[in-house]
């Protein structure tokens, strides 16, 4: 009975101390509040233009998990990669490997999907590979955001694309191009198959560029 007022006053004192500390250091918005406000401002900042509609800024898990200067937690990263693996479509009739010459053309093209492009069809898009990777040795104008892919198949022991021993690396590469988040939650590489940037045939051509022993990449 006698203790109650004491406890009450203790609570009042600590509340006053808290208030005082708040007053001396003006509390700015919390990180979570800033996150929420940023999303709100992004929603109102963009408008449709040509083929680039505002639904493009609705993030999926793979995008929202990788939108800060910090890596996602292991649990979130695992969820992203697991989800990504489930999205992968394997090529019809097992046609993994197309024509490396076509693949080189696709790798060179950085076109597609901007608001100044008239069509969002896969046929209008390139793979932009050289923007970020060294691919063949002949092309010296290549980017360095991604690792060099020169000798990609050769370095991985692909001597014959029909050999059963080549199958694991062929499947790995298909998965990586179809949905790069299958292996790395926050990969910088676009998810070419999953997001409809390239179709099965185009991806098979890029596969040939990387894996066919006759491709200049493996010379």
């Amino acid at each position, binding site marked *: 009975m006698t203790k109650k007022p004491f406890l009450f006053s203790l609570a009042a004192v600590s509340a006053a101390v808290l208030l005082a500390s708040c007053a001396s250091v003006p509390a700015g918005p919390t990180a979570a509040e800033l996150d929420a406000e*940023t999303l709100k401002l992004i929603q109102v900042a963009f408008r449709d233009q040509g083929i680039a509609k505002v639904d493009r800024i609705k993030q999926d898990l793979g995008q929202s998990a990788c*939108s800060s200067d910090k890596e996602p937690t292991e649990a979130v990263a695992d969820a992203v990669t697991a989800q990504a693996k489930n999205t992968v479509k394997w090529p019809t009739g097992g046609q993994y490997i197309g024509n490396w010459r076509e693949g080189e053309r696709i790798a060179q093209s950085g076109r597609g999907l901007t608001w100044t492009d008239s069509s969002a069809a896969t046929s209008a898009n390139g793979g932009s590979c050289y923007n970020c990777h060294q691919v063949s*040795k002949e092309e*010296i104008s290549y980017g360095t955001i991604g690792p060099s892919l020169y000798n990609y198949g050769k370095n991985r022991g692909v001597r014959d694309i029909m050999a059963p021993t080549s199958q694991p690396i062929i499947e790995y590469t298909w998965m990586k191009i179809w949905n790069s988040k299958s292996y790395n939650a926050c990969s910088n590489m676009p998810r070419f198959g999953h997001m409809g940037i390239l179709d099965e045939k185009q991806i098979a051509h890029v596969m040939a560029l990387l894996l066919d022993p006759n491709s200049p990449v493996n010379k």
Partner: protein
Amino acid sequence: MKKSPHMTALTAAVLVAAMAPMAVQAQQKSTADGIAEYRKMLEDGNPADLFEAKGEDLWKQKRGPKAASLERCDLGKGPGVVKGTFVELPRFFADTGKVQDLESRLVTCMETLQGFDAAEIAKTPFGRGEMANVTALATWVAASSRGMRFNLPQSHPEEKKSYEIGKRVFFFRGGPMDFSCAGCHSVDGQRIRLQDLPNLTKNPGDGVGFAAWPAYRVSNGQMWSMQLRLNDCYRQQRFPYPGFASDITVALGTYMGVNAKGAQSIAPSIKR
């Protein structure tokens, strides 16, 4: 025979290119050197000078429904002060209650002093009508701080908030290619094709990144303001269209500008 410095530079570039049988690394070096020489040559006659002169003219002319000049415009250092303002923007303005970048602040002045419709200007495509005038004005204001070092204020809570929001926008991934500003601009020494990418999460160096725009683009013959530069970044990120001087593009300016603290401005520069 008297050779112009241009010819000497050109000859040197050709010679460098001719010394072919080298390692790939050395070849790249020579390509980068060639591009650097090309840029050096361009600096001698930067067409940005014309936009700069136009901007100064526009500042002093009596224009708009109120037939007034912009000479009482407050760009952050008091009415009429131009020099030194560019390297301290974006900043908070008490009269609008907002953090504004150079372009949005110029539009505010055009509305309050000259009677133009700010919303109408914001809707005008780049390079047209009053928007072209905003770009010219921005070019002149930037040129008036040439050689000065970036030092954005961060004392007002709204300025701190703008930085924090800009940082979040910088890392925001979206679009069909999952791109963000950070995807290309958060690591030192990377390139897209042969184009060097400045790391904009810190001071990328004098006259690089935020300290280089507005710039004259040789490839399309246009004067590009920072708002247009950001607009085209978003186009290439495959995002939808960002509104002119929207809160997020201004916040990106705050983020890059604060990060560039100490960097010397070379704006207006000249670009490929």
